[in-house]
């Protein structure tokens, strides 16, 4: 029997229908995945579940009887819990204080934190959460914080738990741990709603899958009877190439040469340790590795944002660029797509067009006698927006109001302007919807075909395997192996990423 049934849910907003005739149910003891691109209607459906919106049509049936939920607290009271993508924790308070926050104390007006802590320990043991109630939240890793969020829901006796993109911030190891915890929870008869767009995770964890597209259900399925490609097609509404075509290309000379690169990390440790590699024109060298193994430092050093330790050298088309500033390196043909889109990649408060000319705003093309030539800028930007299929109302729209995928397209469009010799692409599709990711992949391949040497850094192993001609695996700041794409498999790269090196004969 279903613990939750949402029948024929329709929710209209002025001019749009956010949900149309959506059927969705969760049975006790199962993971039911809600899959869909940004704006497909997942969050509207969940907001209806939590009483933030009232459906225009349809009904919500909770534990067998129709329920009118008018507020989140009512939903929580009923036994529905939510683990938000962005954690709702007070960093300066302890775990126990965070869990108790908003609950009435058994010893009011005094707190009963010792009792809370006791209960947290019980729940923690029972579910394998390993959460210590006495620790301040700011000391916890991202994965641990998420377990505190789960703890908050379990403490409030949630029978049904909604997990909103829970793996977005986790390392692969943490994802495995999380899935184990989730499995334990379903074994006890709890129901889980898993919201994600990472297809292999969806395939691995789900019992059932409901795909939403443009506010409607585009299909109900199970991992047994579908494939990643099929899910992607259901999300986007057309066939999607998850692995782009990679036509063979004649590679040229080495355009990027990194020799004995060592870099001090932010914590004073050696984040990159004696790393050497080449990238040839017309080649994509993928760097695979769990994040935090020196990838960020490698990218930033090549881009001129970090100073390496003595003895390192970085050559761009044969020129030693280490003494140069970022600007000079870019003038030599370096392009850089930073890992953190909103922090390093784009100026959020700038318009789309301002971000598109962020790098080359002072070239003769855009200025005449010291002033901007806005006609030329508009022409250039409109063309880029069109060519890179950036969905934006106008080129004067503030960039921060675009979706992640479109912001990333703006950055890629900017960086590919002027046909760069060397491209550093860090996490080019992290958090980006499937359609945009597919498009960005195509662009990266097209750029490779034009003779650009691309260094692709990604935590998404499928992306690295799909795009790269060669794959360098980093572990603890060193390159443990460079593998030809033909010899690379998920398994052998995964082992290398974990630092397991087979003895080579």
């Amino acid at each position, binding site marked *: 029997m279903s613990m939750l049934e949402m029948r024929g849910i329709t929710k209209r907003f002025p001019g749009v229908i956010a949900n149309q005739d959506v059927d969705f149910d969760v049975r006790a003891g199962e993971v039911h995945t809600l899959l869909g691109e*940004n704006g497909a209607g997942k969050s509207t459906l969940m907001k209806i579940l939590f009483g933030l919106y009232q459906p225009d049509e349809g009904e919500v049936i909770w534990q067998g009887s129709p329920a009118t939920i008018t507020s989140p607290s009512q939903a929580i009271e009923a036994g529905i819990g939510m683990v938000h993508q962005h954690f709702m924790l007070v960093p300066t308070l302890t775990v126990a204080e965070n869990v108790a926050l908003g609950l009435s104390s058994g010893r009011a007006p005094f707190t009963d934190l010792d009792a809370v802590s006791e209960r947290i320990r019980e729940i923690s043991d029972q579910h394998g959460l390993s959460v210590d109630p006495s620790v301040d939240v700011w000391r916890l890793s991202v994965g641990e914080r998420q377990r505190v969020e789960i703890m908050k829901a379990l403490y409030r006796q949630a029978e049904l738990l909604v997990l909103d993109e829970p793996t977005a911030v986790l390392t692969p190891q943490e994802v495995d741990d999380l899935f184990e915890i989730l499995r334990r929870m379903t074994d006890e008869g709890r129901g889980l709603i898993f919201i994600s767009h990472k297809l292999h995770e969806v395939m691995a964890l789900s019992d059932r899958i409901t795909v939403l597209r443009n506010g409607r259900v585009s299909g109900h399925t199970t991992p047994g009877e579908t494939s990643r490609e099929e899910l992607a097609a259901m999300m986007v509404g057309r066939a999607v190439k998850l692995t782009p075509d990679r036509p063979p290309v004649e590679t040229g000379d080495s355009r990027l040469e990194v020799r004995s690169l060592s870099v001090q990390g932010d914590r004073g440790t050696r984040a990159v340790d004696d790393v050497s590699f080449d990238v040839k024109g017309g080649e994509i060298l993928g760097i695979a590795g769990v994040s935090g193994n020196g990838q960020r430092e490698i990218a930033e050093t090549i881009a001129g944002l970090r100073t390496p330790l003595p003895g390192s050298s970085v050559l761009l088309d044969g020129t030693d660029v280490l003494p140069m500033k970022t600007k000079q390196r870019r003038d030599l043909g370096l392009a850089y797509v930073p890992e953190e889109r909103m922090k390093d990649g784009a100026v959020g408060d700038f318009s789309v067009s301002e971000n598109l000319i962020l790098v080359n705003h002072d070239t003769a093309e855009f200025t005449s006698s010291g002033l901007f030539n806005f006609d030329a800028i508009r022409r250039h930007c409109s063309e880029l927006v069109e060519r890179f299929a950036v969905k934006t109302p106008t080129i004067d729209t503030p960039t921060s*109001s675009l979706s992640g995928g479109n912001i990333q397209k703006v950055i890629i469009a900017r960086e590919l302007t002027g046909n760069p010799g060397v491209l550093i692409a860090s996490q080019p599709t992290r958090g980006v919807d499937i359609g945009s990711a597919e498009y960005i992949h195509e662009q990266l391949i097209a750029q490779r075909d034009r003779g650009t040497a691309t260094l692709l850094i990604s935590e998404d192993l499928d992306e690295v395997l799909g795009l790269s001609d060669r794959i360098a695996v980093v572990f603890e700041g060193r390159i443990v192996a460079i593998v030809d794409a033909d010899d690379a498999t998920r398994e052998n790269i995964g082992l290398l990423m974990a630092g397991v090196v087979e003895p080579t004969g």
Partner: protein
Amino acid sequence: MKRLLGASIPLLAALIAFLFGAVMLLAIGASPWEGLKALLDGAFGSADRLAATAIKATPLVLVGAGITIAFRTSVVNIGGEGQIVAGALLSTSVALAVPDLPAIILVPVVLVAGLIGGAIVGAIPGALKAYASVNEILSTIMLNIVMVQLMNYLLRGPLIDPLEVEAGTRIPQTERLSDNATLPNIVPGVRLHLGVLIAVLAAIAVYVLLWRTPTGFRLRAVGHSPDAAKAAGINVKRNITTALALSGSLGGLAGAILVFGSEGQRMVTDGSSAGFTGSAGFNGIVAALFGGLHPLWTIPSSFLFGALLTGATNLQRVLQVPAPIAIAINGIVVIFVVSSGRLREKIDRMLEARAEFDDTPSTPETPAVVEGAQS
């Protein structure tokens, strides 16, 4: 709707401030109605008074426009006072050194000297912030004090009027500066000098700089997101220094205009910076905030503050109220206007949050389902 609300809040704040002022006048037994009349009459009552208001507004426009450069680059410049003094000192020194240049040359030369003086004093805290992470709020305030003492030293020593030494009175002031450096009047018969025009043009130039030139683009990029600017190859440190230097240069220009537009045509100190600047270095910040940190809006907002200053003088004279009352009314306006900025931010954020909440299904990413559209 949002715009209207944003514009009305500072005006509302000013209104409430005047109500407070009225209460204060009542409390000391003066008529608020007469007070308001005296205030308005003092500020706008005749061509001369209007000119006096414009002259009072001039340094505020310049400092205010300069402040917008700094704030748009996300650096704070509280050093207006010191920068004004620096510009005045350098331009005065130049006028003393080459008094015989023809006016057509000497006037531009002393103005440029003012710009340079202010720029130097602005660049110091800029460079300290950029290259040594010294908090610019502290360093600009400290430099205010340094510049005042430098002024006092120079006007009592090296730059003092030789006649004062001869007479033994030793009033700390320079000799009467060359007439060739005097800012010419722009309206016949009214004491309205070229400085007013220069200030307005400077504010327009700041607008052009910030929004129409690559230099301003870089400053704003650094102001919004130093990380993204840096990754794009923009030199963040240099731009922070540039921002404060440019900001300071306009203060320095104000200093030169104060000297060469003054009745006495000489630089005098009473030992404090306010004695020379009339606190324009601080009031300019308020004028800039009141103008929404937009260089063009700084012009009317400075004019309003100029009116308040000249009007208050008249208020004091006509109603015979003590000077502190006039100053207090000014202060109240400042407090209300500045805190209204915070209120406006809060309201903006509230409106934005609401828009975001309603916005979820219609993000531009996915074409939303419109009734009758294909499924």
